[in-house]
């Protein structure tokens, strides 16, 4: 029996989330700003029509779209809307892959239903309950479903079945396939493969030669043969990192330290949430010229202990920092990760139960009341960076999704 897979993709998700709570933004050119207010990370269709591209600096966007309204990004709010969308989709299937903040895959196989009507009901229910516009694609493979949902946006509804598959493939450029970026698309073009129909006609061997195994998987998927499942359980991350800009270039040691500690708080929260520990820990500073300076530590044992990691942060800062330089960003990265529940315990170092209870309580309070409500006293040196509650959330703080 053929699989039935749906892909639900919110339209202009960040802008749509802002419009849910501010109706005066409806019908206007709206840009959501990120990177400390420097560039457009999401845009409405009205802004897109003016030629503004995602990632464009605000001053260039202003020239193309002078009447646009700019909104500061609010990942806490976007996360709430995203989770609410997931709750609605659970009414349609138990097999859901929370792919990204605004996209999900559902496995609807074995359900006796009309594909188009099901897609329509999902779309209407999300619009009714959240006032969020989404596009839905349904087909026999996740690759086809994802391409389908991109067609006819916004509020698109596309079903690809055997009857219309050939037409669909011939009218779909290879660059529309998820996983085929512009570089790979140009490589395919050089072989005379421009659309998905030509991709299949090229043959499995040829595609494997050009694009290796992932390309071969797509070759099967485009023909309606499902190889890539809907993934309902997210595996443990191989790497965890937190970091970003420090709001202006600075050579102030205390200020830079405060941002490092802020990101350590975030990293620590991620380790707690995923129930993981790390053994390889890197501290990275980026100076105002864009150069990176890294100090890497191999911990004596897997750890998620805040004080221990803070010790390494201080050690790294002492070694990397130069008062003659200005810094623009800090990053913390953990690799060589293991699950806390599967960790081999050490006979000689008993875990500090009081500390782990305290950290558990801290994370529970912050989870309920907001990031950084309870935080280390080491953050004392820059209290102003906690003034803006919006900045306390990044996209990486929205847990459970595959991307980021």
């Amino acid at each position, binding site marked *: 029996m053929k699989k039935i897979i749906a892909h639900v993709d919110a339209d202009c998700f960040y802008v749509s989330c802002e419009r849910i709570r501010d109706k005066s933004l409806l019908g206007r050119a709206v840009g959501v700003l990120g990177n400390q*207010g420097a560039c457009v990370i999401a845009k409405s269709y009205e802004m897109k029509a003016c030629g503004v591209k995602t990632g464009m600096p605000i001053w260039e966007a*202003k020239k193309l779209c002078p009447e646009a309204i700019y909104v*500061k990004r609010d990942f806490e709010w976007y996360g709430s809307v995203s989770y609410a969308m997931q709750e609605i989709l659970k009414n349609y299937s138990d097999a859901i892959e929370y792919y990204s903040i605004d996209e999900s895959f559902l496995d609807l196989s074995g359900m006796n239903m009309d594909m188009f009507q099901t897609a329509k009901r999902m779309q209407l229910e999300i619009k009714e309950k959240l006032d969020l516009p989404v596009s839905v694609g349904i087909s026999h493979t996740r690759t086809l479903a994802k391409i389908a949902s991109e067609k006819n946006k916004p509020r698109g509804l596309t079903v690809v079945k055997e009857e219309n598959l050939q037409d669909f493939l011939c009218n779909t450029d290879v660059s529309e396939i998820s996983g085929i970026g512009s570089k790979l698309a140009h490589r395919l073009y050089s072989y005379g493969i421009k659309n998905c129909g030509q991709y299949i006609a090229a043959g499995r061997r040829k595609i494997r030669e050009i694009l290796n195994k992932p390309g071969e998987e797509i070759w099967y998927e485009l023909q309606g043969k499902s190889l890539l499942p809907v993934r309902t359980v997210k595996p443990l991350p191989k790497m965890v990192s937190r970091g970003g800009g420090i709001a202006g270039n600075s050579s102030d040691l205390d200020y830079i330290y405060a941002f490092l500690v802020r990101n350590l708080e975030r990293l620590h929260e991620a380790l707690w949430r995923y129930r993981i520990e790390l053994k390889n820990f890197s501290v990275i500073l980026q100076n105002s010229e864009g150069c990176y300076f890294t100090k890497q530590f191999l911990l004596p044992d897997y750890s998620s202990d805040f004080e221990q990691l803070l010790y390494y942060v201080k050690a790294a800062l002492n070694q990397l920092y130069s008062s003659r330089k200005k810094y623009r960003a800090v990053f913390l990265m953990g690799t060589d990760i293991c699950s806390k529940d599967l960790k081999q315990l050490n006979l000689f170092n008993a875990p500090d139960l009081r500390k782990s209870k305290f950290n558990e309580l801290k994370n529970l309070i912050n989870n309920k009341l907001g990031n950084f409500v309870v935080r280390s006293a080491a953050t004392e040196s820059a209290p102003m960076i906690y003034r803006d509650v919006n900045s306390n959330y990044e996209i990486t703080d929205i847990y459970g999704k595959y991307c980021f």
Partner: protein
Amino acid sequence: MSYKIKFRKDEFSEDELKKMKIRINGDDVIVSFFDKEAYLPIKILSENRFVLWGNKNNPRLRVPLGAFLAFENIKSGQISQLKPKIVDVIANAAQENGIWFQIKVGIKAILIKDIYGKEHAYILTMPATHYFKTMTRSEKMPVLIKQVI
């Protein structure tokens, strides 16, 4: 500085808007300090009304010239003799150096009376946050209500 603000036209009745000879743009109304007669829409004791925006160029009124007053100066009591009152400016967007940015609740302003008893409202300003500076290239920003940019 934010010399232009936008607000929803349904904050006021049609008659009130006609009386003020204000520019209406769809569902929004735009007011500018550089309008011939500049007015600010304010909310005071749950009543919406228009008052003169600052003082364009008449020192004889014995109220500060300009459209804005620095919040630090009000806090330090510099114009306490004018008995300033804090009010809310009704706005859903403001423009700074050509960039329109969202206002979620409103903007803080102060209301003072000139020697003839006429009210003037001045938008309160503060040093711009790094974010606001990056977004608008302005060193000062309006004092927003329940919003941090």
